């Protein structure tokens, strides 16, 4: 276990991990804040959400890889990661189909950056999780089901 990293982050408690990453210069604050797209984050259907970000009907691609649990350990904080192996990826969005507001996160990927993002999303029920990627002006997507269960009764 990397105690040094743990202690460093504990020492910075209050800032939170994201704050630290910003403080460490790993993510520029303007990237974190500039991209707020009210309309997109308030979209109520998948088609609408695709529409607002200009994705139309994105093509399904095996080069967009979602990392997420098959069954969530805690629906309130579901870790979701997206890696895009498509060259010139400039944008990644994560959408939760069954959430009241579909769009959970969007990332602007600066040129020359590896398109590998991770976040935590809240999920009220079992749903498909969509990753939508814009690369070289074109949109691609993939999806993965994440189950949210009541728990108990196992084995």
């Amino acid at each position, binding site marked *: 276990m990397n105690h040094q990293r743990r202690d460093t982050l504990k020492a910075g408690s209050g800032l939170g991990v994201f704050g630290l990453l910003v403080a460490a210069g790993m993510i520029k604050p303007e990237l974190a804040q500039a991209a707020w797209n009210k309309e997109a984050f308030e979209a109520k259907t998948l088609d609408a959400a695709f529409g607002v970000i200009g994705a139309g009907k994105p093509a399904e691609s095996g080069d967009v890889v979602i990392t997420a649990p098959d*069954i969530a*350990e805690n629906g309130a904080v579901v870790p979701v990661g997206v890696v895009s192996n498509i060259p010139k990826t400039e944008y990644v969005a994560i959408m939760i189909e069954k959430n009241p507001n579909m769009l959970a996160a969007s990332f602007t990927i600066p040129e020359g950056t590896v398109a590998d993002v991770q976040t935590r999303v809240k999920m009220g029920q079992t749903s498909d999780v969509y990753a939508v990627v814009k690369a070289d002006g074109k949109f691609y997507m993939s999806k993965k089901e994440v*189950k949210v269960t009541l728990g*108990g*009764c196992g*084995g």
Partner: protein
Amino acid sequence: MSMNRREFMQMLAVAAAGGMTLHSSFARAEKAAEALYDMPKFGNVSLLHMTDCHAQLLPIYFREPNVNLGVGGMVGNAPHIVGERFLKHFGIKPGSIEAHAFTYLDFVEAARTYGKVGGFAHLSTLVKKMKANRPGALLLDGGDTWQGSGTALWTNAQDMVDACKLLGVDVMTLHWESTYGADRVKEIEEKDFAGKIDIVAQNVKTTDFEDPVFKPYVIKNINGVPVAIVGQAFPYTPIANPRWQTPDWSFGIQEQGMQEAVDAARAEGAQVVVVLSHNGMDVDLKLASRVTGIDAIFGGHTHDGMPAPTVVENAGGKTLVTNAGSNGKFLGVMDFDVKNGKVVDFRYKLLPVFANLLPADPEMAAFIDKTRAPFLEKLTEKLAVTEGMLYRRGNFNGSWDQLIVDALIAEKDAELAFSPGFRWGTSLLPGDTITMEHLLDQTAITYPWTTLTEMSGEMIKTVLEDVADNLFNPDPYYQQGGDMVRVGGLQYTCDPNAAMGKRIDNMMLKGKRIEPSKTYKVAGWAPVSEEAKDSGPAVWDVVANYLRGQKVITQRALNLPTLKGMDGNPGVAV
């Protein structure tokens, strides 16, 4: 001489226990015992595998299921085959001692003939026998070892920890172990097991930075061959069991992590890579089809006693998938022939542990006696006598669970009751006395509280649908590996092939339809939420009270759902 059937069978059992050879099949079995356990050494790398013993230190009875449905791609495949079809699939002779070990067929009569199974003293003898002509053989423990008995609970798992060290376990992985809490697991790993037993689990990481909590794998040298054992803990521990017991650990299947661990072990020089898994067999079969470089997965969790491995093809070659049953009933023996740095051939047998055919190891027997001594008075309290057979295992219900839900309804004054679909729990034969120990075999967990909840009809359906999807989702990665929640008082139909949320229908209570908006008084136990801690008296106290009042437990009909779409499924026999 005139005697009724039961007296006759009891006499046989006494005779059998005394080593007399009255009954022809037992006599044959004794003669065959050497053949049963005479497994000639093969190859140069041997691994012994036990799993899911659920803390059963003494010999017990364990009835295999007559309902173990497979859906989707699993229909008719091992492990979803029962009874006669099981025998046919694996080429086992009907009426043989193996047929008794692996199936429920003629369970009561055969159990009286062949006697109890398992027990660490008898298992120890078998382990020693197998190791005697297999130099360097390792003993792997797939987990669910520290939970399932009164003594394991009361000693905070210490009796099983010490028993496993004495038995000579080399490597283990986890599931129910975690219900003693993260601190206790780490304490045992760092103190009791240090230098003796490795805990491996590639899929357990910290929730914050995803740092590994345990070693992902260990590499052991067996007769000059580096052998990697990769651990896979039960992926859904914090969902199926209380989250608060391991708040900082994240689990999951972690397919990519598995591939990385296998590749790393190979890169380190491992010529044989095996996975010690608590995934459950369907999950292991899928994993084996997608991850490359694994020679064998030694599986548990779903308690499937599989006489032969399933061979799974994947992009990198072939992977063997085994599952070694439960309750100390079996020992898996895998012999690999490793030549020029790779496995070229194998032999595998899942040996049933018949206590009457394997003398108790004196050292282990003495240890067990000593560890039980302080608790004997509590364990041996006679609660009632059962007229029928009591067992748990089966997709929808077992007579033990029927008894538990009946007791919960009566003692908690509820309209209906839920009991979790656990697959552990020993069996009793007709006429047996139910002791406190037997009741604890069904109930001994670290969150045993009973609950009484006002639940809407809609919520009742949600619960049933949720658990049904954990059992019957066509994608094994979405299954949790338990059985369906047992229900008392409520009738329903179940269509396992239907989509999530559409499997349960026609819910009826006392001849009336369950109304979605009406509330019902529902009793239950084993709540997983932290808020439900200490919600009511422990389930064993509630059920013991009921049993003491009843004195004689009459044979009761199982409350089973009406199944739809399962005609001809080889996973059900009635």
